[in-house]
């Protein structure tokens, strides 16, 4: 594990983040014990992916100007937040953990997952931005539904990209073996 420099401002902030993370980890480490197997973690990840598909579908509905379309965003959020919190609890929040709390293998895995997350974010947001740009040109800036749907697509793309590292880590981390537990 790495030990941050505590003399500089960034070092002190990282030390504070580390203390806060460890305090939260103690609080959450015993939560959802039955959901910490690889199989069940993968079910949560699939649930989260299905929620993103639903969010995209909400954008499509909004694009056609159906008046109740935006209301569908509420059940999407009602699914998204509990699933994301559950995925992050069972994966030990390693996607967002300060470096001082991880060992070198965990840091390597986290960096790899974050790198993929960044690539996913860039790709999806670019597609959503192109939809807005070309949509604005084609409709001569007169279609408010298209703009609303574009906003939902951008938001969905950002959520997918930001959740990708947690999803990858939850999906790939092997189960604890009996020898792993003291």
């Amino acid at each position, binding site marked *: 594990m790495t030990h941050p420099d505590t003399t500089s401002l960034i070092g002190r902030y990282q030390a504070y983040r580390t203390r806060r993370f460890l305090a939260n980890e103690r609080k959450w480490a015993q939560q959802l014990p039955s959901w910490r197997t690889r199989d069940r973690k993968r079910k949560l990840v699939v649930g989260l992916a299905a929620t993103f598909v639903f969010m995209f579908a909400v954008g499509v509905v909004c694009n056609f100007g159906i008046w109740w379309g935006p209301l569908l965003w509420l059940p999407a959020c009602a699914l998204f937040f509990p699933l994301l919190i559950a995925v992050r609890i069972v994966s030990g929040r390693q996607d967002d953990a300060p470096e001082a709390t991880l*060992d*070198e*293998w*965990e840091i*390597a895995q986290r960096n790899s997952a974050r790198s993929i997350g960044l690539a996913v974010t860039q790709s999806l947001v670019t597609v959503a931005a192109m939809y807005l740009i070309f949509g604005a040109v084609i409709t001569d800036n007169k279609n408010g539904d298209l703009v609303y749907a574009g906003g939902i697509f951008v938001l969905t793309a950002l959520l997918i990209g930001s959740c990708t590292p947690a999803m990858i880590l939850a999906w790939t981390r092997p189960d*604890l073996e009996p020898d*792993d537990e*003291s």
Partner: protein
Amino acid sequence: MSPVRRGETLPIHNRIAVLRAERRLSRAHLAEAIDVNPQTVGALERGDHYPSLDLALRICDVFGLPVEAVFARTEFGPLSTEMYGRTTRPNAGGDPQ
């Protein structure tokens, strides 16, 4: 994974699992001794992760062995063969083979 940036990744084999079994150390105990997660010990044993020099030296310290006894570029043979493989036993009549 390797810290090397470019080119062909050369393998680093290790004897951690054998040494751990010989000393009746659980992964959790070895992990505690070298300050890593137990799953990281599993990744090292499977060859999924090549350790940094710092981690390799910590592991060698726990076993009290030099680096070349724990890590190598070539695959390790069984420890017992390396220890006893070259000695010959006298046959029943006492004549050396």
